[in-house]
Structures are given as C-alpha cells and as structure tokens.
C-alpha cells in the first residue's frame, strides 16, 4: 500500500515508540505525586517542555502547554484569546479554528474573515484592513492544510502588531511544525501543533505560547500545564511527541529537500491533460493538491484505494461535513469542473521515488478510465 495521505496523519516512528514505551510500562506514576517516582517524572516532563519550545523558538520566551490535540490548542487560543472586541481570521482556516470563530460569533464577538489569494494563502492587505484598535485576536493558519500555501506568519504578525500592539496573534502550525524551516518571532503569541502529523501519536498536541502572555485556563481542574490545561499528563504521548519532534528537527533540511524532490516528481508525472495542479510552487512541499477534470474526487479515492494507493480529498477533518465542496477551495476561487475532483496528495520523507511514480501511474490511468466511463 502506498500512503500519500500524510497530511491527515502519519505512521508513528517505531524507534520512538520503543523508547517511549518505558513511560507506559515502568514509569506509570502520576507526575503530580509527591513521592520520588512521581517527582522525577515531573522533572523529566519539565525538561521535555523546555526542549519542545527550543525546537521552534527561544525557550526563554516561549513555553509549551500540552493538550490532547491540535484542535484543542486552537480552541484554547480562540476562546481564551478572543473574547472581546473583534476577532480577525481568514477564510482558509482549518475547521479547528473556523468552527471556533463561528462559535465566537454566536457568543456575540464580531468575527472578520480575510480573503484568500488563489493559491490559498491569505491576502495580507485584506487581513490588515480588518484589524483595528478593537481587535483582540488575529488567527492565521501557517501552512494551509488543503493547498499547502505558506503564510509568512512572522511578517503578518509584525504588521498586525504595528497596527494594534494589544491584539494577540495566533497561528495554527499543525501542517508546518517539524516540516518546514521556521522560528517563532516575538510577535507571535500562540502557535498550535499536533503530534500525529509528525510520526508521533493521536491524542497529543500542544499550544506553544509566549511566556509573558496571561491566558485564562481552557480546562479547569488540578492545575497541570501551568494551570491552563488541567488533567493528568499523557506522559507516554508527550514523550513520544518529544522524540518524534526532535527527530524531525534534526533532519528538517534533508527531509524538506527530499520531499520537495518527491513533490516535483509527482507534479511532472501527473498527466496535465487530466489534472490541474492547485498547490503553489512555493508552498509546503509536503502537500500537493490537484483537481481532476470532470470526475468526483471521492470516486477516485475509492478506486485508487482498491489499487493500493491511499490519498485524500481535501481535509480529512471536513469530509464529514454536510457541505460537499471544500469551503477553502471555494474561497481560493476553484469552481466549475474542478471543485468536485479535488485530490490531496501528501508526503512524508519515507516515501520513495518508486512509490511516487507508481502512484502517478495509478492516478493517471484511474482518472482517464473514469472519465471515459462518465463521458
């Protein structure tokens, strides 16, 4: 089976799992407990927090709040950061942010959506024009999960702060963390990440936040994670997250180049009479979104699945939604013959050239065959 749906989730690293296993079997203690076993675990976790923050920013300035997923981190950022005035976000957000924005609207907060460029990145002028002195929070996705377009969130955050220094800036970095070269600049207040997108496990995510930022808790209880996210720590999941993240950052540049080569190989191997490339050239190489002319993406998904290839159609998280067409792709201006046929191909560094060529061949023949039948 060729797996090209790595933006949905990734295969966990076996070596990291093996290392983290001790936290499941031997070091099962509660890190809040007062006996030595618990306290030692608490110390180990404190080190993990520092290490994780250092991977992406200055750990003097940033701390890590572990959550149960990227969605929870986004919820914390939106609901604890944006409860007054207005909130500015984009039409290209993952539903983890978009649905929170919709809920904030119901709660009486004014929510403003910035327009997208055709590649799925946010239109910077549109975004900035929506920010005013009443803006409490701006949230911009780092790498668009449907097209792979990269928003320069450091630059955007700076311009936002220049206009309103009190506005908080949050970015959903789920598709960027561990994948593209990036360091948090001080203008970014909060940044959401997820473990299972980088070879760790579902059930772990984190909100990386500026240390000096005072936030209200999102989940109340025993006061773990600086009091912001109570609940006994998922030690195994967190350690697994750490090992996978460290591994990703040690090889970040090599992985990036490798995946970029795979991406361009697939771009050139797909029949351009059958597919239109929708992802931008300068986007994240980890995501290649294409539109297949005149067929339904889901039909193709099932057919190539039967032939040994796993791909996605847009975001896996919104395929349950009642709206059949992707809200984000529509906001990018994709329509007509293509909107039904959107396929998201997403990579990991472990994919091989052989797999990519085989995948291209399966996709070309399947779409051609289906178009002949539907014609």
């Amino acid at each position: 089976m060729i797996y090209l749906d790595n933006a949905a989730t990734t295969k966990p690293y076996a070596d990291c799992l093996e290392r983290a296993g001790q936290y499941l079997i031997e070091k099962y203690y509660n890190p809040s407990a007062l006996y030595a076993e618990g306290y030692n675990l608490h110390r180990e976790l404190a080190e993990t927090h520092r290490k994780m923050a250092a991977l992406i920013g200055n750990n003097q300035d940033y701390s890590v709040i572990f959550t149960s997923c990227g969605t929870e981190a986004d919820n914390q950022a939106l609901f604890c950061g944006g409860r007054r005035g207005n909130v500015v976000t984009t039409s290209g957000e993952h539903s983890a942010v978009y649905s929170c924005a919709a809920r904030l609207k119901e709660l009486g907060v004014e929510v403003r959506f910035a327009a997208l460029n055709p590649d799925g990145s946010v239109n910077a002028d549109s975004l900035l024009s929506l920010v005013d002195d009443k803006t409490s929070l701006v949230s911009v996705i780092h790498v668009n999960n449907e097209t792979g377009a990269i928003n320069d969130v450091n630059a955007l955050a700076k311009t936002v702060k220049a206009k309103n220094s009190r506005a908080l800036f949050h970015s959903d970095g789920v598709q960027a963390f561990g994948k593209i070269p990036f360091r948090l600049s001080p203008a970014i207040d909060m940044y959401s990440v997820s473990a299972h997108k980088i070879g760790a496990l579902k059930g772990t995510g984190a909100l990386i936040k500026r240390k000096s930022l005072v936030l209200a808790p999102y989940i109340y209880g025993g006061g773990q994670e600086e009091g912001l996210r109570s609940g006994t720590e998922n030690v195994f999941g967190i350690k697994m997250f750490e090992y996978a993240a460290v591994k990703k950052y040690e090889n970040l540049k090599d992985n990036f180049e490798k995946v970029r080569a795979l991406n361009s190989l697939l771009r050139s191997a797909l029949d351009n009479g059958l597919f239109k490339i929708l992802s931008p050239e300068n986007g994240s190489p980890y995501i290649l979104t294409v539109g297949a002319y005149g067929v339904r993406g889901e039909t193709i998904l099932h057919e190539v699945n039967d032939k040994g290839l796993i791909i996605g159609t847009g975001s896996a998280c919104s395929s349950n939604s009642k709206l059949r067409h992707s809200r984000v792709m529509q906001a990018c201006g994709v329509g007509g013959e293509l909107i039904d046929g959107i396929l998201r191909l997403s990579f990991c560094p472990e994919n091989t050239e052989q797999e990519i060529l085989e995948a291209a061949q399966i996709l070309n023949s399947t779409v051609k065959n289906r178009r002949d039948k539907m014609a």
Partner: protein
Amino acid sequence: MEKVIIVRYSEIHLKGNNRGYFERSFAENMEKALRGIKHEIRKHSGRYLIEGFDDELTDEIVARLSKVFGIHTMSVAISVKSDLDEIFRAACKIGPDYGTFKVETHRADKKFPMNSMEISAAIGGRLLDYKPELKVDIHNPQTVIGLDLRENGTTLVFNGMIRGAGGMPVGTAGKGMLLISGGIDSPVAGQMIAKRGMKIECVHFHSYPYTNMQAREKVEELASVLAGYTCGTNLHIVKVTHIQEEIHKKCNGEYMVTLLRRFMMRIAERLALRHGCQCLITGESLGQVASQTIEGMTSSGSVVEKLPILRPLCGFDKNEIIERSRAMGAYEISIRPYEDCCTVFLPRHPVIRPKMEDILAEEAKLDVEALIDEALASTETVKL
C-alpha cells in the same frame, strides 16, 4: 415481594384455531428481544408474565419489549401472597402519595373470601387512611392501582399500564423483501409492514466507488434499527455501478432514475424469490419525488412479474413519515449526509411522467439480463 412484568397481547385473542401458532411466535419473539437478560416467560390466563430478572434491568426489559409487535400493554408489578396486609403493603409501595386514584381488582382465585368490589374498597380505604393527600375518583383517576388475584394464591399489584407496540407477532404474516435506501422512508415502511406480522429481509443498492463505505455503514445501521422491531433481518447488498454506467453511456440521461428503478425492482424480486419472500416493500410515497409519480410507480412496478408490491407510505405526507421515523429511532441516522446510488449520475431534469414506450425504447439499448445477473452475483448478505 418479587418484581414481574405483565404482558398483555393485542389481537391474538381474535384468532381461532391457529391461536396456538400465533402465541408460539409471540413468545419466541419476546425471547429473542430479551436475549442476554436472565428471565423466565410464563403464560398465564390470557397474558404473559416475565419473571426471575434482576430488579435493575426492569427498565431495559420494558424498553426492549416495547419494540415487540403483538404487545398491547405492559405493567410492572409486584407479586405478593394473596393476603390483604401484604397486598396493602405492596399497593403503598407502588401507589402515589397524592392526587386521585382508584383500585381495580381482578379475582381469578374464587376461593378468596371477598369479591373484587370488596377487595378494591378495602385496599382503597386503607390507602386513604394511610396517605391523607390521596383522593378517590372512580371515573377519571390519575392513577389506577391494579390487583390481580391469581389462582395460585399470589396477587400481582401494579400501577397503571405502559402501551406496547401493538400489531401482530412478526413471523405470523409471511415474509417480505424491503428495498432500503439510506433515506427516511424505507425503514418506516418496513416497520409498518412488520407491525402486521410480516418478517422482513432488506435489499440495498450501492454504486461503489461513486458512493462510499460510510453510506453502506449508514444503511447497515438503519437496518439494525429496523431489526430491533423485526426480530432480526438479513441485509442483501447489491452493487449496481455497472448498470448505472451502462445507462449513462447508452441511454438518454433523463431516464437514469426510471431505468435504474426498474433494474432494482427486478433484482429485488429475484432475491425475494430466492429467499422465500412473498412480496416487495418500498418506501415510496405518492408524488414525493420525480420517480414516485403514479407513472413512475407504473414503470417500476411493471417489471415485477410474480410478487405484489406493498407501498405502505403511499398516502403519507413527509411530515408524518418523519414523525414515525423519529419514533422508531431511525431519523437521526437517516439524515446523515451520505449519498446513495440514486444521486450519482443524477440528471438535471429527470422525466417526471415517463411514457412506457419511451422507457422500453431506452431499455432496449441495454443487455438487461446480463446486467441483472452481474449485479446479483455481487450480492453480499449481512445478518443483523
């Protein structure tokens, strides 16, 4: 004091010589509904008693039995020795503390020294003394306390009655093949026919890869909801992708739905005969969509040669169907947004009043028999 559930059945008492057959099916269906719960079912002068179960499971037993067709009413009762003091204690326990009430006594035990009027009066009087906020109202009481003095020297004391599902025991009126889609109507149609005692098998048509696995899962869930009322069912799943592709390729697109429905009916009839079903059942409601006009029904019905087609929802409004769907617990599943095979290749303007000669002319472009055989060969059966 032991808890028992009294089950009274509805129309079986109307039956003559075959009453035994109806009662056996009824008892078997109750056994099936209560599978996995320790209990005993005893027949007792025109009603059934469920006994020997754990107290905490009372509500679950009542909930499961409320789906068994043939049950008119049920009562949760306490069984005590036929002794006025014991009966009074039980009546105190299950009766209300305030409001109006009356006591109704049924005395099968003719050796008991008082008649039913006297027993009612005695227990009612003691209740009035003991609970001063109670009042008697013979004509329109808020609570009826029932006393059932049995011949074996025990008395069942109960508070009111719970309505059962009514109808006839499933299995006493033959077997039918229900065409089930992922929508609201077909499970309701199946439940209505099952209520009159018919055993149900289901057939579902899908168009993988144009439709997805979730759509199939949805149908399986709907069929399981129905199975709760029909003492189980078999779901036959038939792939009609190639039929749709052939129609799309060779015929006028406006006839897609009309032609496909004729295929579905033919396949359903063959499966029905194979599985000993005596009719087809559909969820069609007159005029609801383009294919459910009388012309559409004539067209799809005319290919069914040997069996009658039951369309119990024909005279129902959508709202009435939705109400029934909610009541049976299928609605929330039915409205999940997955596509069934009808919406794939859907023409922009389907023919609403298809003419038979046009249909036949379009159909003549296809190798009907070969396509049916191919679809039948794809059948998978799931037991629910």
